């Protein structure tokens, strides 16, 4: 096969990628395939990114990308998910729409040979990619879910117009300790007549005084949890397992679950290494946007667990090479920030870097999904631990602790709390997290709101971030002298 070497690391535009794409040997691109396990359905997927622009992903022209082949593969893997889901269905797989749970239920689904999991609420990014031309928000508006609700309301629109992901065979929806908007949106989707399996996420309480009876268990994230909640969660997961089995007609044995857990951990270990290098090395070897995609893939495997592992391994290999060669993708010595919450507009991650910052640690709401799933206990119990480690089902203090740990680990100089407009969990949680961080580690915190398109509010966002960096610059100078 013809050799291809990545150019010096740089962030490039869509137009620049078009030129570079022509230099990559076709046979090299053709080797990257999804759905490899079913030869008839297997498909090469690494295209010119501009092709997605031409089919409606208008936002792509405003973004800057990592110029490596591995990053191109990663982007293509992300952008072909809906197509892939349709291909899986044609190949006879059952599709499971997972809602609210972040990272655990897909491990169960992918333990089955006949199921594919995805997150329909991933549609919250569609209005950004399509620069609102998808009209998903307008459809949600017409259903009475306006812009005072979380952008996941786009999911409701996607279930109604059915122009995006295929409608799942079964939706597995967590309620209980879940943000109010999403509970309501899931209920509205179920009201459309789609098949739902509901389960309950209990609020995680660790105050021993509240639970005078019974034992406590230390979860993989280090938090304590009453044993009674673990038992409850095991029952819930067993019920979900039965639901998946009923839909696929295939029994999921403990051995299959153990294999599924091992595969998930393999993916998580790759992301661990990537995070260590991207957030812990200078010069910075990977940009924030590509790292956001890598972290996101951990929760849903982007609807192909095998190819997810291969694509991430490829990106890791690229990042490792850069670290060995002391090559960075960002110039100079950027301001290091730990980023809290995923952004509704991906352009925001570019903007952070354009203004002189870089990401050093994250808490994207699902950081429990980055933790390894215990492999030395019964699989259902191990998965119950992971559900109960969810950052979203404890108080804001849990999240603050995790953010502090990240900031310390990656030597951040500041924390940016990026709020999601309308998201009920974000409404006041940001202030609480900010206060705890300031009090405990005396670190500057910037609180911003990032809508699905930041263009109209760009001036204000720039002012906030630039001021934040002016504060960090002063702290750097003070510490130096």
């Amino acid at each position: 096969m013809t050799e291809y070497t990545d150019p010096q690391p740089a962030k490039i535009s869509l137009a620049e990628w078009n030129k570079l794409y022509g230099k990559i040997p076709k046979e090299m691109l053709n080797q990257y395939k999804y759905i490899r396990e079913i030869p008839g359905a297997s498909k090469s997927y690494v295209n010119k990114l501009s092709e997605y622009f031409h089919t409606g992903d208008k936002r792509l022209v405003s973004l800057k990308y990592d110029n490596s082949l591995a990053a191109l593969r990663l982007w293509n893997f992300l952008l072909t998910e809906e197509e892939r889901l349709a291909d899986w269905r044609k190949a006879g797989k059952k599709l499971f729409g997972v809602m609210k749970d972040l990272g655990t239920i897909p491990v169960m689904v992918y333990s089955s040979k006949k199921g594919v999991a995805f997150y329909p609420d991933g549609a919250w990014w569609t209005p950004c990619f399509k620069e609102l031309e998808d009209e998903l928000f307008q459809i949600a508006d017409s259903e009475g879910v306006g812009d005072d609700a979380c952008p996941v309301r786009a999911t409701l629109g996607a279930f109604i117009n059915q122009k995006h992901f295929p409608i799942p065979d079964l939706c597995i929806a967590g309620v209980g300790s879940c943000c109010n908007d999403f509970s309501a949106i899931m209920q509205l989707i179920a009201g459309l007549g789609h098949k739902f399996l509901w389960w309950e996420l209990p609020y995680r309480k660790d105050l021993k005084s509240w639970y005078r009876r019974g034992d406590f268990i230390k979860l993989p994230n280090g938090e304590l949890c009453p044993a009674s909640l673990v038992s409850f969660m095991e029952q819930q997961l067993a019920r979900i397992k039965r639901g998946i089995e009923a839909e696929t007609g295939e029994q999921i044995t403990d051995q299959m679950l153990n294999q599924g857990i091992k595969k998930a951990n393999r993916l998580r270990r790759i992301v661990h290494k990537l995070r260590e290098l991207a957030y812990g090395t200078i010069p910075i070897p990977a940009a924030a946007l590509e790292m956001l995609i890598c972290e996101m893939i951990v929760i849903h495997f982007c609807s192909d667990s095998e190819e997810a592992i291969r694509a991430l391994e490829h990106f890791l290999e690229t990042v490792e090479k850069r670290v060995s060669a002391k090559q960075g993708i960002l110039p100079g010595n950027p301001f290091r920030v730990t980023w809290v919450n995923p952004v509704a507009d991906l352009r925001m991650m570019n903007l952070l870097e354009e203004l002189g910052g870089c990401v050093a640690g994250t808490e994207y709401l699902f950081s429990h999904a980055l933790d390894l799933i215990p492999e030395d206990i019964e699989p259902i119990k191990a998965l119950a631990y992971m559900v109960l480690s969810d950052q979203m089902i404890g108080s804001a203090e849990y999240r603050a602790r995790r953010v502090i740990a990240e900031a310390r680990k990656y030597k951040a100089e500041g924390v940016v709390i990026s709020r999601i407009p309308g998201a009920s969990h974000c409404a006041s949680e940001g202030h609480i997290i900010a206060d705890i961080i300031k009090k405990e580690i005396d670190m500057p915190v910037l609180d911003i709101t990032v809508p699905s398109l930041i263009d109209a509010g760009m001036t204000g966002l720039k002012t906030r971030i630039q001021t934040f960096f002016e504060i960090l610059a002063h702290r750097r100078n003070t510490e130096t002298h």
Partner: protein
Amino acid sequence: MIGCGIDIGSRTTKLVLYDADKQEMITSAITDSRLDKEESVVNLLDQALKKLNYTKKNIIKVITTGYGRELIPFADENITEITCHARGVYHLLPKTRTVIEIGGQDSKIIHLDATGRVRDFAMNDRCAAGTGRFLEAVARLLEIEINEMGPLAMESKKPANISSMCVVFAESEIIGLLSRKVSRSDIITGVNKAIATRFMGLAGRNLTEPITFTGGVALLPGMASALEEACGKGINIAPYPQFTGALGAAILAVEK
């Protein structure tokens, strides 16, 4: 050594020349912000230089700030208005620990450390409520000039209750108050009170004194007292409140 600071705000553009040797502002100028920012800034600078019989060579550095700070190609650097207001206020009132800045388009709370550097800040630019633009809308409804609002507010006997801080809804609320013969002075005081209360939501509970109020809205008599009432603390008004951003930029120009 002369530093030039230019604050290109949403409503007005301000320019200050600062003499580092004398440690004082030697001239200032203001004009309405226009579509062609560069042209109005060039005119403003020419006027200021002519007044002092200086040329551009006398200026060591030009720093722009404000919402249009990136639009002036000949500027040596741009710095945010938050940092510049903080520096300007610190120069004028060095004991200040909290700056309240209400401008034409946004409002800010800036916390300073003992050296006058920004420690923390919060900013509202998501809606016009609580900004100069809101006051302009109120003045228009009351059929008065904005500079008449202050003296009228002093005549108020019983501030009206304004519940909505959305410009659009407040408009219908004010129309309702006018139809009920509520006096303009009571409406203005009610508006000031509502702005102050809303601003305290942004500021939070822990305002460290001394507090200095700056920005164009600080020129309106009655607003500072409304803020004092809302936070229960004393508030100083910065000298030349419209110019503290440009002054800070000019000082930073010579310091850098």
